């Protein structure tokens, strides 16, 4: 490429020499034309790259608000794309003006290096042992053992609370397993290549990654370490002891992110199945719900190593969950014990009805008892695995635990809560001897204000109630269309904003919580994992509402009032009035923080004034700066070609027109109907679609001259003209005296100085509607800063009303519209053309915020009568009447 450019330089130099001698041959002219076309092609590539840069900047800015979920793949893809486009612009500049802007490369490399440094930050992979005995684990080792096992070790080793014996297969072990199979690069590639917005793609991604992990080879060192640790457990607990393998991923069970039920657990596992069970749990890091959860909560995939707890299996006579406080009401200090017969898994997956004991704190005593009819229970098989058993006789009607046991459980929960200082969610079991064993504890996610909401909910507004009852599992009110999910494949068709209705609240439905407006389940209680997650996501939820899947048909619009435990037909505004704003789940998340840090090197624009001394490559501090600089200078370089090479055909021509301003036109390609040999071009020889549309707007309504200025306004102009560097007439600028158009049939770029303010318009209007755009930049003015800012805001608001994406910065306004077909784009350009002329010098009369009401009325009236098509005018009028300000067409 370098040699090609040096050829061009030498060749153009020879041409210059020949031209001085006035002996250009037709072949030379043809060569100049080709050189110009190459230059124009580079200019187009530069413009196209510039548009993508602006698009990415806008997308990143929007993402920084944290309103929608995204992962690291979004950040990496956009950083890569924007660096490629900015680099493309620099290369185009190299070809437009070889050697002239070499410093851009240095600025680019410096900015890219800073971004790469942020993106490559990694949590230090666990360098500790592969296996850690549980009796050596406490909360200080959560980086090696994961929060779940760290908490279990902590309460056992610090509080003496009974937990199962066992060991942890550490984060270092997980890394070794993944690295041994070189899986991370492949996993990253699969994630990066998948559109995560599509549920079917997410499902396929999940299946592919899990399959790769399950079929990966176990390193010998790790296999042996697990085998030795199991043998030691056998020596403590007995020959052939069965174990439960529990996920304990880094970041799981924390205060902000519970990951409740998102990963796999394997119960009653024999020695022979240890390795395969470990792989299944490691793979569950990429279960559909876990991927969706991380995405929604802004958690980096690379920050999560999957530790696994390998614990002696407790064949529970009964088990369940304790909430050390009311999850809906932080002021309610009572303890809530959910209990079922057999293994506690039935309580957390909501598959079987559970008893509820409510216990007062001081003194500890049972204040409420709700005994459910228990028809089934889960127990351990003798060989391996678990099975569901029918409960026969009177056992199902009796309490699953004695009152004393409930009190003892409450006391344990209080101890754990006191130790950690926050409310706890504790999983427990009664072993075969009737002794309490704690299986897990984590911070309880609490919500506030439910009591008041429940009181308000007692007043039922007029509505058609479809069904009522069940239990509030997550407070709030939601509205949407019913979607009943019965099987895994239904997940693929779930629409955003729908009401999720299920029979059993299984953890796997959690993948839909980020999209659901409310959740209704026939089974379960507030203790199930899905309820935990619904509270975390602020999705209103009712559990235990029998018959819901039959009573609520797909597609029906309903209002789910979880506070009042009822579902009403249609949208009940009165109920929705007090609904909580959806929680911004990305807020404070690692992914959002990284995006914000990366954006500091991409988004801010420091190079505003092309005439300012620091408008130079070495002053570029962000990618946005570089793109702005390249765009600005590329225009200048394009104009210079005809002049530099004294090549009349590609020099600018003065437009012959009826308005008293100088307009100069450079035909980039096919913007003229026929070639123009002289120095002037007539308007009827111009065929540029966007320029003609802009021109129609410019000449649509004669300018009445500057608005009348009072003494204050006049003084302001005098003072400003004397002090502003930007208005210094001595500054060299190619725009001071003239207005420049660069055109082709589908493109136009206008750089203009009207009085003291600078404006530019650029537009592409052609058959590819998705590539069409018009951008507008407007800055400066003669009045004081306050008035100029008001004028910028005034112009921005008008454009915003016409669907431009307008941004105001100080006294500048940038506005952009894209993706519309030719007719719409022409109308938008007419509006821009009109505003270019008629917002001149209005900064002088921008005394205060109310000073422009009359002016706005005049402009809108002109636009309506002289600019818009007839159909648009009618819509505009109606829209103005009803919305009082928005002119959406």
């Amino acid at each position, binding site marked *: *490429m370098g040699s*090609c450019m040096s*050829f*061009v330089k*030498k*060749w153009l130099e*020879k*041409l210059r020499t*020949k031209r001085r001698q006035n002996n250009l041959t037709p*072949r*030379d002219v043809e*060569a100049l034309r*080709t*050189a110009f*076309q*190459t230059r124009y*092609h580079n200019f187009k*590539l530069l413009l*196209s790259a510039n548009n993508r840069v602006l698009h990415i900047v806008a997308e990143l800015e929007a993402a920084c608000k944290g309103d929608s979920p995204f992962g690291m*793949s979004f950040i*990496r*893809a956009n*950083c*890569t*794309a924007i*660096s*490629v486009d900015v*680099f*493309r612009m620099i*290369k185009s500049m190299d070809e437009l003006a070889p050697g002239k802007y070499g410093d851009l490369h240095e600025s680019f490399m410096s900015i*890219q290096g800073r*971004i*790469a440094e942020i*993106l490559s930050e990694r949590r230090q992979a666990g360098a500790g042992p592969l296996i850690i005995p549980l009796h050596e684990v406490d909360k200080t080792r959560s980086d090696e053992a994961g929060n779940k096992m760290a908490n279990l070790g902590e309460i056992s080793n610090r509080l003496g609370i009974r937990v199962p014996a066992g060991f942890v297969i550490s984060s270092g072990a997980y890394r070794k397993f993944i690295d041994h199979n070189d899986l991370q*690069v492949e996993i*990253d*590639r*699969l994630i*990066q*290549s*998948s*559109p995560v917005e599509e549920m079917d793609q997410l499902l396929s991604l999940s299946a592919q990654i899990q399959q790769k992990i399950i079929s990966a080879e176990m390193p010998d060192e790790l296999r042996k370490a697990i085998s030795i640790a199991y043998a030691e457990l056998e020596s403590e607990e007995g020959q052939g002891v069965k174990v439960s393998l529990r996920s304990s991923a880094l970041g799981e069970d924390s205060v902000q992110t519970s990951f409740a039920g998102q990963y796999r657990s394997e119960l009653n596992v024999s020695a022979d199945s240890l390795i395969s069970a470990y792989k299944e749990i490691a793979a569950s890091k990429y279960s559909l719900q876990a991927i969706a959860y991380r995405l929604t909560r802004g958690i980096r995939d690379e920050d999560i190593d999957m530790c696994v707890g390998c614990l002696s299996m407790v064949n529970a006579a009964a088990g369940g969950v304790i909430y050390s406080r009311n999850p809906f009401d932080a002021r309610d200090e009572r303890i809530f014990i959910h209990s079922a017969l057999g293994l506690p898994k039935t309580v957390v997956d909501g598959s079987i009805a559970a008893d509820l004991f409510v216990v007062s704190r001081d003194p500890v005593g049972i204040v409420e008892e709700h005994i459910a009819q228990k028809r089934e229970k889960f127990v351990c098989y003798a060989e391996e695995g678990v099975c569901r058993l029918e409960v026969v006789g009177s056992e199902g009607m009796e309490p699953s635990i004695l009152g004393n046991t409930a009190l003892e459980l409450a006391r344990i929960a209080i101890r754990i809560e006191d130790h950690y200082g926050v409310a706890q969610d504790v999983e427990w079991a009664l072993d075969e001897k009737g002794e309490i064993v704690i299986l897990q504890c984590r911070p309880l996610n609490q919500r506030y204000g439910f009591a008041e909401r429940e009181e308000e909910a007692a007043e039922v507004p007029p509505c058609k109630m479809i069904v009522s009852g069940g239990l509030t599992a997550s407070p709030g009110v939601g509205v949407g269309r019913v979607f009943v999910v019965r099987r895994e494949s239904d997940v693929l068709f779930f629409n955003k904003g729908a009401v999720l209705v299920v029979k059993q609240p299984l953890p796997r439905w959690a993948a839909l919580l980020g999209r659901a407006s409310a959740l209704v389940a026939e089974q379960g209680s507030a203790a199930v994992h899905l309820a935990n997650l619904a509270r975390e996501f602020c999705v209103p939820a009712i559990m235990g509402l029998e018959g819901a899947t039959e009573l609520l048909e797909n597609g029906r619009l309903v209002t789910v009032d979880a506070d009042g435990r009822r579902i009403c037909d249609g949208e009940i505004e009165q109920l929705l009035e007090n609904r909580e704003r959806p929680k911004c789940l990305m807020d404070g998340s690692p992914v959002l923080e990284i995006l914000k840090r990366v954006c500091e090197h991409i988004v801010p624009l420091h190079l505003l004034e092309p005439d300012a001394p620091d408008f130079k490559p070495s002053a570029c501090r962000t990618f946005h700066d570089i793109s702005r600089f390249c765009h600005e200078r590329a225009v200048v370089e394009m104009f210079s070609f005809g002049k530099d090479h004294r090549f009349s055909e590609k020099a600018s021509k003065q437009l012959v027109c009826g308005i008293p301003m100088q307009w100069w036109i450079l035909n980039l390609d096919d913007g003229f109907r026929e070639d123009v040999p002289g120095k002037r071009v007539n308007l009827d020889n111009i065929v540029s679609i966007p320029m003609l549309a802009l021109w129609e707007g410019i000449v649509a309504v004669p300018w009445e001259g500057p608005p009348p200025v009072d003494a204050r306004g006049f003084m302001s102009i005098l003072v400003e003209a004397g002090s502003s560097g930007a208005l210094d007439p001595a500054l060299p600028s190619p725009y001071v005296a003239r207005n420049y158009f660069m055109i082709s049939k589908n493109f136009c770029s206008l750089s203009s100085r009207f009085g003291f303010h600078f404006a530019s318009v650029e537009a592409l209007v052609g058959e*590819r509607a*998705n*590539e069409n755009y018009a951008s507008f930049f407007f800055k400066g003015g003669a009045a004081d800063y306050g008035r100029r800012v008001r004028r910028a805001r005034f112009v921005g608001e008008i454009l915003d009303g016409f669907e431009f994406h307008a941004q105001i910065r100080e006294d500048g306004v940038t506005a952009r519209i894209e993706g519309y077909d030719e007719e719409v784009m022409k109308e938008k350009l007419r509006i821009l053309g009109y505003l270019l002329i008629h917002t001149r010098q209005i900064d002088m009369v921008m005394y205060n915020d109310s000073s422009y009401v009359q002016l706005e009325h005049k402009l809108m009236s002109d636009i309506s009568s002289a600019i818009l098509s007839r159909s648009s005018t009618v819509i505009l009028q109606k829209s103005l009447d009803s919305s009082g300000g928005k002119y959406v067409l």
Partner: protein
Amino acid sequence: MEPISVLIVDDEVEFLDTLVKRLRKRKLNVNGVTEGPAALEFLKKAQVDIVVLDVKIPGMTGLDVLRQIKKNYGLLEVIMLTGHANMEVAIEGMDMGAFDYLTKPIEIDDLVYKIQDAYKRKKLNERADFPQTLDTLGK
């Protein structure tokens, strides 16, 4: 006018097959191979305008293939298309003369536009044919 001739190099067979079919529907003359050496062999035998090249392919890396292509077929344009969003690799590729570096997933229309733009550039470079012009002027 001859259709634009495109060679796609990607080791993901399913992705490759789908892309070949979809681009053929857009009236492009498209072929696909799964390995770097096979791509270089193909170029020896067939006329190709644009190569769409993955970064991680068996046999040799995508950047090595790009280097070979630029060395032996200077006017041929290469678009990198990959699942690896890596800024450093992207810029290395661009610096070696790749026309663009795109990350998957990509809209098929966007890829077609890129191919068209790359093809225009190739044609302009062919027309410019700078060394010959310089020789002529020197005479």
